[in-house]
């Protein structure tokens, strides 16, 4: 819009004029300006200046008779004049003093008024008289003085006002008063003016159609002054249409200039109209109007030599309208309206659309200018220098200098054209402007998320840059486009863009880009579009066709092969690939060049043995239009030892061979050539050295001495997800023949670790025995491998997988004694065990380093394990080593289950003294079967028998058995409660499996405590061979109750009798209490004896004394006989009891025997004759 003069762009503002009393001007004008609607002020310091608003100067040069200048549609400066020099109202300011008092001054006032009236009369400008008075003297002004003033000024009373500057409130009032009067008068002024012109229109009293138009314009402007938009709009439209009429009819000017003038005027009308419509929110109407405006002028291009003007004009129409749309926020128009009439689509509501077209027409103009200039006569006579814009809008004339006055002389179309063209020449190129417009459009589209339209603008910009050979910018813009076109598969569009990019990179001589773009282009699926007819202006690359594609292909490979091209040799500009400029392209999964070279690599096996050869299939595919020959392929793996090179026999000489690593594996094939969309499949064996992942990373194709493409290897399995052509109808064969590999083949395989060649032997000797340090020999013998940095891992695991601590025990801290099984240590043979580097041993885990072993060597160690409870466990031993230094580790695992058994079972028995039966009340009360928790009589010597049974399969040597007091009891007994004596310590005895060993102890409780702890049996034993160490097995004995028996019976009789010989038999009843005990006793008869003595009776036994029953017995038969049984019943305790049968048996010899005491002793079995030593 800045093309238009200010006065046209903005709605007109009322102009008033104040004269005299300069000091107040500032205040007044600022006030007026802030009025609503604002009023501009033309301030004249004093009355001498009023001539400025006088008609005269221009009027009279109108008077000057000049046929040509008279005619024109709209005066260039008319509007400006009315906004700056022709006030609607003039206010004359006088000081009150001038009125009253000095007549000279009054006279002055009158003359001033006269002059003023004279000036404004012609224009019927309204007049206001302002009297300025001081606040204090405001009453000094007399009615009649004002009246006389009014008469002088010939204005009615209300237009004579007083103005009081020196009091705030008064000043305000005065200003407002002034403002209102101005406003009122201005409206009337403009109305009258408007009406005046309008009547002429209505009376059709205008000479030519030009006047018609002009009058419409004026009326409209006056209406605008009054803010009567409707009226204004109406008049503008009338004018516009009238103007359109003229095109055919008017003959006033030479055709070109006439057209130019009309367009210029039409432009102004149009601008006014659209502005009014848009500001009135009538967007749809505005657009309809614009469409029609555009339609009615579009065709009027005028003759070719000048038609660039037309295009420029048209472009401006679009640009201005776009700007108007943009400024009126009404652009987001109601959707209803857009859909309602299908004839106008949403697009027409978008400034972007107009910007874009503006650019398009400007481009049009540009090309026209170029043509016109080319046709312009070389020598430009300076005549057109004197040509200037004339008085009228859109007219030009030659300024003839006639001495004192100068004359506007009409010019010929030729002159005009020449002039216009030279003007063009002075202007700077349109390109920048075009690009600016496109940029605007681009941004507008972007905001609407119209990415494609935006891209189109980008394309146009890029092309413009290209034309102005700003290749850097051009390339940069084109580059933005490729991704969209690729992604959406618009091959034709991509083709055009790439074509430009290719040229740009050529111009910028960037080989890298040039080659890449060329390759991509030549690999484009042209076939799918070549069905279309030949297309023109597809950019530098020409129409996409197979031939074209092949040419590009040829050119590229000529360059990389460093051949000299025959005819198109020169057009490949500065692009060269050679030793100074080698070129290396990378192609990955997402690269657009994937179609140029696609490599798929598949191992035939997912898992391979090291050193064992496996097959790898390498498939290459190219979409390039013509066959591509590759000099050599370099296949790279993550394990670089596996890298190898495939050489094309045809191209041996190619220098690229030279820089092959000498010890590289090199395969040669007769020829490596890729045909369009045909897989080239090569299969090779490959050996991996190291275990672990083996992955093919890159395949590098060398073409020509200094060009290579390195292509990320792909797995066939993953290629289904990334088809080469998303949208193209192309048969896509699978990279390998074998469907399985095609479906699941991978470019990576797993290399296992080599088989171990070392024996690991766990020697196991039967079950382990609880308590002993069980030694388990581990032997490893190296066959085939030497063992380096070997490491032995030992692990004890519960057979049921559970840990070695039983859950109950785990809570209290796992001290070794609640650990069932424990790895005590690893005993290595000191002779071999040179390095003792790592040796970690925990309760169930051990780690031992193994010294270096040569092939054939062997090494062994013993695991020392101890069982605390009988339990089967699993022993895992694993050896990790590397066959040679640096080589990856190899692992062997062995495991063995070992049973832990209890070696001996220990049991015991307690017995009372012989033929002496204490009355133990507890025993009576208790039920017989639970007689086990024994109770012992205090101060009586009883007997403890302990037996140990060997329950293993091996003989055990029993070293000793003893009873030790538990440290527990040690504590809680101050003085000994009992003495335990053992028999003679027997020398070690050998127990065969299952055999039982007995030992007898006597126990004599002394103190009367209720309980007695007997301590624990302690057995020292070892396996029956010297090497094995002795083991101590402890087993604590159960506690026994103690009680002092009230009564004790002792039977006394000789050790034996002889048949028929009498002997005496006493039964002593001791009363150990301090009470008198009543005792019943009875004696049962016996067949084997005749006896004399009391049978049964009741008697009293005195405290702490004894009562003796004595009998005389005569044996009647021989052998071991039961003595007559005595039964005692204590009345107090109502407890009867008998001596044990054992106690009351006697042996009767048939006749008196003869023997020594020695054998006699022997003859008695151990259990009946306790070895007894009484303290």
């Amino acid at each position, binding site marked *: 819009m800045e093309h238009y003069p200010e006065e046209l762009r903005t709605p007109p503002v009322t102009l008033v004029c104040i004269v005299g009393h300069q000091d107040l001007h500032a205040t007044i004008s600022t006030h007026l300006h802030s009025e609503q609607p604002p009023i501009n002020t033309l301030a004249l310091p004093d009355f001498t200046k009023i001539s400025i608003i006088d008609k005269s100067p221009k009027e009279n040069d109108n008077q000057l008779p000049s046929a040509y200048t008279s005619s024109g549609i709209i005066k260039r400066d008319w509007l400006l004049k009315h906004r700056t020099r022709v006030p609607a109202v003039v206010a004359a300011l006088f000081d009150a003093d001038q009125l009253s008092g000095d007549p000279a001054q009054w006279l002055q006032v009158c003359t001033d008024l006269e002059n003023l009236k004279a000036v404004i009369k012609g224009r019927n400008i309204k007049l206001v008289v302002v009297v300025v008075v001081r606040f204090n003297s405001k009453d000094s002004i007399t009615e009649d003085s004002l009246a006389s003033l009014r008469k002088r000024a010939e204005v009615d009373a209300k237009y004579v006002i007083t103005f009081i500057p020196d009091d705030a409130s008064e000043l305000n009032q005065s200003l407002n008063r002034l403002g209102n009067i101005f406003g009122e008068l201005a409206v009337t002024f403009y109305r009258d003016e408007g009406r005046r012109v309008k009547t002429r229109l209505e009376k059709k009293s205008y000479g030519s159609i030009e006047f018609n138009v002009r009058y419409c314009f004026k009326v409209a402007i006056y209406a605008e002054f009054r803010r009567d938009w409707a009226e204004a709009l109406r008049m503008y439209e009338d004018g516009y249409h009238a103007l359109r009429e003229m095109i055919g009819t008017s003959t006033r000017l030479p055709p070109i200039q006439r057209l130019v003038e009309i367009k210029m005027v039409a432009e102004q009308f149009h601008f006014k109209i659209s502005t009014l419509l848009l500001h009135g929110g009538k967007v749809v109407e505005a657009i309809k109007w614009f469409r029609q405006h555009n339609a009615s002028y579009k065709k009027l291009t005028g003759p070719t030599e000048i038609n660039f003007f037309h295009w420029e004009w048209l472009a401006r129409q679009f640009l201005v309208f776009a700007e108007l749309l943009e400024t009126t926020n009404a652009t987001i128009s109601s959707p209803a309206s857009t859909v309602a009439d*299908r004839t106008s689509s949403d697009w027409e509501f978008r400034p972007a659309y107009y910007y874009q077209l503006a650019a*398009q027409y400007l481009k049009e103009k540009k090309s026209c200018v170029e043509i016109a200039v080319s046709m312009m006569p070389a020598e430009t006579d300076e005549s057109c220098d004197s040509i200037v814009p004339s008085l009228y809008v859109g007219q030009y004339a030659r300024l003839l200098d006639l001495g004192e006055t100068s004359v506007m002389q009409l010019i010929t179309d030729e002159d005009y054209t020449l002039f216009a063209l030279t003007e063009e020449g002075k202007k700077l190129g349109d390109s920048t402007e075009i690009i600016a417009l496109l940029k605007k459009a681009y941004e507008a589209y972007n905001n609407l998320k119209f990415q494609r339209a935006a891209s189109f603008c980008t394309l146009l910009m890029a092309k413009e840059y290209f034309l102005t050979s700003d290749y850097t910018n051009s390339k940069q813009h084109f580059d933005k486009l490729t991704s969209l076109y690729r992604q*959406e598969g618009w091959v*034709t*569009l991509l083709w055009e863009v790439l074509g430009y990019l290719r040229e740009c990179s050529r111009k910028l001589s960037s080989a890298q880009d040039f080659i890449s773009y060329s390759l991509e282009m030549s690999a484009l699926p042209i076939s799918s579009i070549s069905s*279309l*007819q030949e297309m023109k*202006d597809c950019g530098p690359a020409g129409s996409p066709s197979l031939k074209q594609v092949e040419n590009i292909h040829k050119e590229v490979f000529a360059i990389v092969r460093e051949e000299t091209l025959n005819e198109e040799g020169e057009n490949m500009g500065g692009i060269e690939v050679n030793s100074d400029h080698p070129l290396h392209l990378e192609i990955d999964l997402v690269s657009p060049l994937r179609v140029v070279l696609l490599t798929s690599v598949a191992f035939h096996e997912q898992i391979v043995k090291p050193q064992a050869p496996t097959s790898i299939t390498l498939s290459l595919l190219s979409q390039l239009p013509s066959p591509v020959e590759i000099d050599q392929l370099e296949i790279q793996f993550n394990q670089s030892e596996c890298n190898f090179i495939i050489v094309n026999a045809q191209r041996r000489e190619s220098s690229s061979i030279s820089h092959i690593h000498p010890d590289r594996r090199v395969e040669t094939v007769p020829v490596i050539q890729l045909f369009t969309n045909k897989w080239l499949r090569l299969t090779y064996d490959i050996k991996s050295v190291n275990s672990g992942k083996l992955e093919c990373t890159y395949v590098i194709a060398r073409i020509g001495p200094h060009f290579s493409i390195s292509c990320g290897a792909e797995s066939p399995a993953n290629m289904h997800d990334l088809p080469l052509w998303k949208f*193209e109808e192309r048969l896509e064969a699978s990279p390998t023949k074998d469907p399985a590999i095609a479906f699941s083949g991978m470019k990576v395989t797993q290399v296992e670790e080599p088989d171990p060649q070392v024996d690991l032997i766990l020697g196991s000797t039967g079950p382990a025995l609880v308590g002993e340090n069980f030694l388990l020999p581990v032997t490893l013998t190296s066959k085939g491998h030497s063992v380096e940095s070997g490491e032995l891992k030992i692990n004890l695991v519960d057979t049921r997988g559970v840990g070695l601590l039983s859950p109950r025990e785990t809570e209290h801290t796992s001290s070794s004694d609640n650990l069932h099984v424990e790895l005590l240590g690893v005993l290595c043979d000191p002779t071999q065990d040179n390095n003792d580097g790592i040796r970690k041993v925990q309760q169930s885990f051990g780690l031992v380093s193994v010294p270096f072993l040569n092939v054939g060597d062997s090494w062994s160690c013993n695991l020392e394990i101890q069982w605390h409870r009988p339990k089967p466990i699993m022993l895992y031993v694993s050896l990790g080593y590397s066959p040679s230094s640096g080589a990856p580790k190899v692992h062997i695992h062995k495991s063995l289950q070992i049973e832990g058994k209890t070696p001996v079972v220990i049991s015991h028995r307690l017995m009372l003294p012989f033929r002496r039966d204490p009355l133990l009340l507890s025993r009576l009360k208790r039920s017989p079967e639970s007689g086990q928790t024994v109770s012992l009589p205090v101060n009586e010597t009883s007997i403890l028998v302990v037996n140990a049974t060997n329950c293993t399969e091996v003989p055990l040597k029993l070293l000793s058995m003893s009873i030790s007091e538990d440290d527990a009891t040690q504590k809680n007994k101050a003085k000994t409660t009992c003495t335990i004596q053992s028999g003679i310590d027997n020398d070690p005895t050998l127990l065969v499996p299952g055999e039982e060993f007995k030992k007898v102890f006597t126990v004599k409780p002394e103190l009367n405590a209720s309980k007695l702890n007997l301590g624990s049996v302690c057995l020292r034993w070892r396996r029956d061979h010297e090497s094995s160490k002795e083991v101590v097995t402890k087993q604590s004995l159960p506690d026994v109750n103690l009680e002092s028996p009230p009564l004790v019976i002792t039977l006394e009789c000789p050790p034996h009798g002889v048949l028929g010989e009498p002997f005496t038999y006493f039964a002593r009843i001791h009363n150990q209490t301090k009470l008198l005990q009543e005792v019943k006793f009875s004696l049962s008869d016996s067949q084997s004896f005749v006896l004399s003595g009391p049978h049964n009776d009741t008697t009293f036994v005195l405290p702490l004394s004894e009562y003796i029953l004595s009998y005389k017995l005569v044996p009647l038969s021989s052998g071991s006989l039961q003595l007559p049984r005595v039964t005692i019943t204590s009345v107090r305790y109502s407890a009867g009891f008998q001596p044990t049968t054992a106690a009351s048996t006697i042996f009767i010899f048939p006749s008196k025997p003869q023997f020594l005491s020695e054998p006699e002793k022997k003859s008695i079995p151990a259990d009946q004759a306790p070895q007894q030593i009484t303290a």
Partner: protein
Amino acid sequence: MIVCIAVVGHQNNPLYIQSFTEADDALKLHHIVHCSLDVVDERVNNPKKSGPMLNETFLGLLYPTENYKVYGYLTNTKVKFILVTTDLDVRDADVRNFFRRFHSAYLDAVSNPFHVPGKKITSKTFAERVSNIVKSVSFHTTG
């Protein structure tokens, strides 16, 4: 007269595009078709804007260029048909009718077993059929 007709796939990729005009503006037509996709997207993505004709396959006028009018049609299977014509005032009915016929031609083309779903339509029969349809229709409004 119809100057260009295009079938555009799910990812806004051209499945078929044919212009019926002297060669030199074929590419321009491709650009026009491509840009028109913006409007289709807009229409479909914010239905409120497209109001009543929400699910209708016929999308109506997409956008006017200086010398063309571009119409759109969106099948239930998200395939777009774009029509570019030089006739500046056209009855919707005629365009609808054209699209209907074009659609059935398209159907038989994609029913060809050798047509891969979502890929370009290369069938010659289709091409012939389309050009026949195009020849047969005329959008000249009778006043």
